[in-house]
């Protein structure tokens, strides 16, 4: 549950946080980079969920399994939820919501890794 895959997700998330901030500061609308980045990130998160469950199923290790799956599911739900909530306000606020979602994802990935390593709630 550690390694390059999780690091890639964190890297892309933080990159998109930065890009959202640039768009916000320069008063620009969400662009293709943000949209494509978001789609790629969501696909990676779905992969993370599936990979995590597969790894968990094959592991004898003792850790908080329900919590682990909870974080993985939350990770996949955040971007779609933020997208729906952001659509309700097409001003810069919508972009702000998306930026918050990108900012939260690295925290969730880190929590997934912590739970996997055995430090629970």
């Amino acid at each position, binding site marked *: 549950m550690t390694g390059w895959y999780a690091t890639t997700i964190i890297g892309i998330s933080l990159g998109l946080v930065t890009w959202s901030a640039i768009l916000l500061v320069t008063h620009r609308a969400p662009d293709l980079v943000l949209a494509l980045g978001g789609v790629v990130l969501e696909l990676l998160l779905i992969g993370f969920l599936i990979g995590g469950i597969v790894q968990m199923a094959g592991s004898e290790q003792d850790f908080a399994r329900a*919590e682990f799956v909870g974080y993985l599911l*939350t990770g996949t739900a955040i971007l779609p*939820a933020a997208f729906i*909530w952001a659509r309700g*306000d097409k001003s810069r*606020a919508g972009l*702000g919501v998306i930026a918050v*979602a990108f900012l939260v994802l690295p925290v969730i990935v880190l929590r997934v890794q912590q739970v996997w390593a055995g430090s629970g*709630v």
Partner: protein
Amino acid sequence: MSEQGLSPRIPSTGRGFGRVLVAIYAIFALAATARSVFQITTKFSEAPLAYLLSALAASIYVVATIALARGDRTSRRVAAGAILIELIGVLTIGTASLVWPGAFGVATVWSGFGSGYWFVPLVLPVVGLWWLRHTRSP
């Protein structure tokens, strides 16, 4: 009741910056609720006081999120009440956790004024109350 919500001129608590604020509240509501359910169902006896406080914090975040998102007159009152309790909670528990370390057994979301969450629990109610005041109809 909803004459305010229908008028686009009057700012609502769920629009503009409020959109972002509701998103942040929603994340705290979700995180605190999930954590609380997990703590209470699996290890409640370890630190009942801390886990009850966490559950209280979680329910306040849920109420504040929904009330801010709705933004009608009643919801504004509910939001103000919830956020005020949230502020009092984080200040009280924050102070208590420093004066009597270990009093709660384990850390709650409000311990150390929310230091475990980058002090967001301390900043959030202040911003929330400011936002309610800012969007108050003239």
